[in-house]
């Protein structure tokens, strides 16, 4: 279940969070959406915007799927701010219909956030807007990702900066094989880091262990991207891409939808295996079940284009029992 392949404490253990983190990580009992920050925090923000810090965090993000970063011992590590979303509003580009009506969210490194909400509440739109999907237009607010203005960046730049989104319904690309696609994406990242590109065989050697991580056979590599894939295969392909590319922040949009029991296990296991203290995950899901496998730091309920409630796992349990109406009433 909570399988960590890298043998270091991660957020998935059922016991209380083992990091010697400052108490501010625990969601405050009120419905305020910002975490209360102790005084030293602003210094951390300043630090994270230095360029070489960004460079090294990219490298850490890249290797996070392979190496286990050195365990922090002793004093309190300052948790880096990965994502800060303030009052984000967005519309559908074509019809100008407003979907996001002021979203506020803060994610630190090593955290797992879950976003739940009714269909049409704007959860997927939120993820798509973060990633730069052309169907949507931002009309207000700000998004800072690792100290950079995310909204100023093109979609491919955002990906190279360490933001990954797994699509709810990945598109098919006939004519382009999986291995070529993965190699192109991986080499794009390497180029960004100033590393030389990998040839076909070297890439295959790098890729092979990742396949085991998502429980896929090598024969799928020669198939065209998502062409003729079952729902479970498509989702596992998304996680494979995450494993290959690495990311500081992974947005997983309903990664559990349409999966049978076995595929679900594979995906949950794989995601857990990719978690480290330096990268974060935003899970969009409807069901408690995924959150029992991938333990969230906190859960947000989204309604009508805004995050209306934040809590811990008990919030999800209440949701499961009483539905959205009950939660809405209590806020």
């Amino acid at each position: 279940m909570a399988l960590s392949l890298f043998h270091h404490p991660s957020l998935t253990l059922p016991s209380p969070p083992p990091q010697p983190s400052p108490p501010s990580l625990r969601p405050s009992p009120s419905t305020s959406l910002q975490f209360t920050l102790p005084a030293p925090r602003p210094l951390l923000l300043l630090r994270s915007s230095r360029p070489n810090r960004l460079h090294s965090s990219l490298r850490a993000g890249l290797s996070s799927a392979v190496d286990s970063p050195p365990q922090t011992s002793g004093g309190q590590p300052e948790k880096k701010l990965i994502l800060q979303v303030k009052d984000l509003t967005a519309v559908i580009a074509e019809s100008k219909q407003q979907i996001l009506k002021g979203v506020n969210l803060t994610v630190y490194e090593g955290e797992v956030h879950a976003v739940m909400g009714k269909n049409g509440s704007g959860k997927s739109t939120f993820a798509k807007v973060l990633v730069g999907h052309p169907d949507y237009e931002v009309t207000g607010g700000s998004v800072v990702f690792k100290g950079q203005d995310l909204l100023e960046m093109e979609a491919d730049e955002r990906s190279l900066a360490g933001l990954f989104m797994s699509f709810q319904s990945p598109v098919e690309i006939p004519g382009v094989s999986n291995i070529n696609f993965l190699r192109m994406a991986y080499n794009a990242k390497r180029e960004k880091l100033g590393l030389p590109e990998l040839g076909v065989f070297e890439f295959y050697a790098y890729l092979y262990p990742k396949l085991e991580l998502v429980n896929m056979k090598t024969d799928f590599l020669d198939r065209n991207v998502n062409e003729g894939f079952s729902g479970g295969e498509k989702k596992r392909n998304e996680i494979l891409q995450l494993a290959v590319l690495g990311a500081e922040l992974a947005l997983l949009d309903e990664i559990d939808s349409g999966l049978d029991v076995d595929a679900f296990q594979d995906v949950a296991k794989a995601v857990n295996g990719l978690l480290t203290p330096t990268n974060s995950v935003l899970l969009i899901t409807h069901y408690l079940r995924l959150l029992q496998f991938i333990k969230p730091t906190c859960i947000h309920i989204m309604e009508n284009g805004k995050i209306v409630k934040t809590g811990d796992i008990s919030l999800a349990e209440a949701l499961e029992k009483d539905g959205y109406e009950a939660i809405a009433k209590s806020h």
Partner: protein
Amino acid sequence: MAAIAFTPRIQRPPLPLFSTPKTPKPKTRVSLQPSSSSSSSTSQLAYDPFVHQLAESLDDSLASSSSSSSLQSLRDSSVQTVLSTPWPTRKDEPFRFTDTSFIKNSQITPISRPPSLPTTPDDTQFPSLDIVDGFLVNLSNLGELPNGVYVGSLLELSDETILKRVSEFLSSSSQGDLFWSINGIGAPDLTVVYVPAGCRVENHVYLRYIGNEGGDIGSHKLPLSNPRVLVLVEKGGEIGVIEEFLGGGGDKAYWVNSVLEVVVGEGGKVRHSYVQNQSVNAAHIKWTSVRQESASTYELVEISTGGKLSRHNLHVQQLGPDTITELSTLHLSAGDQTQDLHSSIVLDHPRGYSRQLHKCIVSHSEGKAVFDGNVKVNRYAQQTDGGQLTRSLLLAPRATVNVKPNLQIIADDVKCSHGAAISDLEETQLFYFLARGISLEAARRALVYSFGAEVIEGLPYPWIKTKVESQIKELLEGSS
């Protein structure tokens, strides 16, 4: 200049310059006078002095070379046809979208003798022939061919049975156009590929056509060559043929007017690959005329990327039931080019199976692609299973494609389908690449390349696939 008798009614328009070779007029010349038969009135009405001049200069150029009697009769009948066929204009349906004026406005000089330069040997292990400027100059690796197979020039052919068979097909058939007939007059030789009954030829025969002589850019000279090949496969025989059209280097201007006739006997099989990569200033007009006996198979893979004007006329005639016809073509206009495919499949017998896939990519603002895909399913072609799909990718503003799929179905118990799509690359697919950090240019390249890959996959050997792939990559990168 030869003296030609004109009827006074026709106004003589200013004639383009022709340079006729300075050989003395030989005694055996085909009479170029309009025949005095009853068709004289119609021939006068369609009389085109330009065409007449061209025919004459072709005839003069060949006067000095030896020719067999079969070729002579071909020439005679071709001349008769030519005299009543005008040069096509944009008002003629088959050339509505294809502008041939650059040929007409050039100084056309038929190439009368084979080149004296040594040709570069090719390094494949296949039985191969080099046809340079229309003349067969080099044959290699022919020893590997099974007994009874003949690959070579008609003039060298001594086997009486094969000669007899070849002559049966040499008469100019009625379905050609002006260019077919011009080749009939001007072809100096006929390359014959003959496969006797029941014989399976393992390796493909590799025909390399090289346009060596050419006019430099700006000189308006357009040397004309007329290569002609006949592939005759008897009952149950099988062979593959690779035709590769290359330029001699230097982007010279020339006109290659080639004809390939394919006869597939009962139960026979011909796999035809046609790769066209001529100079970007050249005119390339090709006829491929295929006759399929019952239960025979004809497969074509065509990749056309070169030439300023490239026109492929493909005609497949079904002569018996249960035939299989598979056509797969890719045209790329990466510069100021016109790529044109006019295909016609005529089914007159039951249970024919035909599939046609045509893909074209126009990646340059001045580029054009034309497709006219005709399929006639006639009265007795019951239980035909026919499909045609054409997909075009327009990648630059003002890039043009004219697509006219047309199925004429008379039989009432058939399964036919056709589809056409013209588009740019798909947004959702492009975004998927972007969301994985791959740049827009790299994504576009990958998607355009994969569009063509479906046809390229059909080529028979890895070496030719690789050659074509790198060619296309280079062209796409150049124009983007």
